[in-house]
């Protein structure tokens, strides 16, 4: 996991590997802490994520909700086709922004609510 502070107070979290039970357990605390950094405008790069299961989605939803409560936003981007399919099947794209590219993610993260 790579965490980068970008212009405009945006935090980019770049994930690698598997968001399965073990992978999510390994990154959970650090991911949650990074996503909670003020002002909670977070873009999450899923390009390097080859697998996601329910525990991975739970982590994303929990952090996105925390950001929302603090008037921030979390945007997911760059999901591979198979990860994107799962996100859509579970309607994750209906409750938080899921976009193809980093440029679009940054645009959404900068946009006022």
């Amino acid at each position, binding site marked *: 996991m790579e965490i980068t502070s970008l212009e405009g107070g945006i935090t980019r979290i770049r994930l690698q590997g598997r968001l399965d039970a073990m992978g999510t357990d390994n990154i959970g605390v650090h991911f949650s802490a990074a996503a909670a950094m003020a002002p909670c405008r977070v873009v999450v790069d899923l390009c390097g994520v080859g697998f996601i299961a329910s525990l991975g989605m739970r982590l994303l939803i929990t952090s996105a909700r925390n950001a929302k409560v603090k008037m921030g936003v979390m945007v997911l981007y760059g999901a591979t086709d*198979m990860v994107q399919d799962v996100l859509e099947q*579970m309607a994750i794209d209906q409750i938080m922004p899921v976009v193809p590219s980093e440029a679009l993610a940054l645009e959404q993260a900068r946009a006022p609510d």
Partner: protein
Amino acid sequence: MNGEQLRLSLANRLDALGPARQAMLAFLAPAALHPQVVFKLELVLEEAFMNLLWHAFRDAAEHTLELTVELLPDEVALSFEDDGIAFDPTHAAEPPIPASLLDAPIGGRGLMLVRRAARSLRHERREGRNRMRVAVARG
């Protein structure tokens, strides 16, 4: 319905999941399945196993889960057998689609993922044991 089979006995501990996944992938490798099929099988394995881990047992004792992976001409079937509490996933209700992020349940997606991945899902309770069979289409 005879096909090649892999049978594994797994402890109801999280650290049993990784080796089970690796054994399943090694067993399936010669079949050169489409990556999307393998993805679905990994989802079924993970979600069914975690569901058993969290919900099947009321005591802290170690239990053994029997997993059978069956490679058939048109599908791959994962069968799970456990001595946990009776639970029929074919009759469990799905949570509604949430209207917003703040309304969305944090969890409860595991069984939905299994259903979405599966071509068929069967369950029977016999002699105090749950037997769940999840089949994923090969093509």
